[in-house]
């Protein structure tokens, strides 16, 4: 989790290749170092092209209490059957939930899809955070299988890890686009 969060923060704060040379320490499994695009992790040998991709922003701004549709996709490089299960866990300081007009905050539970050669899980994250803390994080854990179920990876098994989406308190440090 730490790796991708660092990548996200660095990417938001300092656009450019130089930054991502540093963010390259994000570790193995990451093919895409640009956090506002679709970060991808490999399952097993990268040569197998079994990948898990998060499709959506790693940083959500402004915190306007709106739900945003994002997704994750597991793709089998050999064209075999896949499965993907996603679980979202938010972490935030107290407050800032926008009241009942802005509930729920994310898609709860284990979300699963299966397909050949790819599986896609759509879900929702709300762009909001408490004003009291440093921002809200949505930790997106996942479990995926490839090769017709013969290969399995999860965000709990290094070098893989959860995707982390941040709704920052503010844009200090620069988001580039401001």
């Amino acid at each position, binding site marked *: 989790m730490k790796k991708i969060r660092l990548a996200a923060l660095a990417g938001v704060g300092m656009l450019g290749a130089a930054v991502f040379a540093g963010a390259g320490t994000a570790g193995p499994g990451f093919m895409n170092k640009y956090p506002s695009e679709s970060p991808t992790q490999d399952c097993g040998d990268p040569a197998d092209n079994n990948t898990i991709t998060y499709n959506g922003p790693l940083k959500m701004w402004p915190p*306007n209490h709106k739900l945003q549709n994002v997704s994750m996709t597991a793709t089998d490089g050999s064209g075999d059957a896949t499965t993907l299960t996603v679980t979202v866990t938010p972490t935030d300081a107290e*407050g800032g939930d926008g009241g009942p007009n802005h509930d729920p905050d994310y898609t709860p539970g284990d979300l699963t899809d299966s397909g050949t050669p790819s599986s896609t899980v759509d879900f929702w994250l709300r762009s909001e955070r408490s004003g009291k803390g440093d921002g809200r994080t949505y930790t997106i854990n996942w479990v995926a299988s490839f090769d017709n179920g013969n290969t399995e990876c999860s965000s709990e098994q290094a070098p893989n890890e959860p995707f982390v989406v941040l709704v920052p*308190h*503010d844009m200090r440090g620069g988001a580039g686009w401001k």
Partner: protein
Amino acid sequence: MESPATGRALFSSALAALLLLGGGCAVGGRDGEKASPEPRPELAEKAAPLDPALVPTKPSGTGNGSGATATTTTPRAATGGLATTTSAPAGGATTTAAPSGSGAPPGVRSLATVEDGTGDAGIGTPAYGDFVAIAFGETDDGKDLQVIVDVAAAFPSPLGDREVIGVGVDIFRTSPSGSGESDYQLFADGGADGWRAFLQTPDGFVEYPGTFSMGGARLVFQVPWASVGGRRGFTTAAFADWSDAAQTLTRDGQDAAPNLGTRRVGLPGGAS
């Protein structure tokens, strides 16, 4: 992107259905193809100085809302100090369907005003984070919706280094009761580097299609009706989020207008 086509909980189905319905609405923006799930900078509109015609004729925060309850708020100058609230009950909110021309800027017909009592944005929240009223009008040519947001003290310029204000006006189309997600949202994002306005539609953020101006204690959005689902009545609710992380102890506050639920904004002639 493939559809998950999985057996999701009712929650997911309901959300998806809601979005599909929303997607059926007219989508705003000058340039629909520029819709984006992320608020790219080129989609936002920087704040312009308030048109003199839109400058309030009486100072904000002095109880210009007939619906305000008996709260006493003492804003600290225009540079944005803390409000001193001396009454406990949160201010109530009322909606008034103002007659044409009453209090509306020249060239604008007043449609409705959601008034909000001051002193209800939380202890320590500056008065500029505290709603006084949200006024809805349309231009005399019937083309534009105008939304005027008045707060209880002038916004400081600039805001503090880690101070953030978000002012959102939700517009519900597919849910007349205002439940669930709004279909459109006008949003003003204020920070140390200035203010920007966004329009979010069922397709995501679109290039802001109108004007956004501010001055004193007032923000004004003006957008074509077509960009917010057409010229017809709608249900609305507004929120203001203020926070300042510059201190060791981050302070924050929220206000809503109305305080609970939503309000209906109708158009003369029954265009609803």
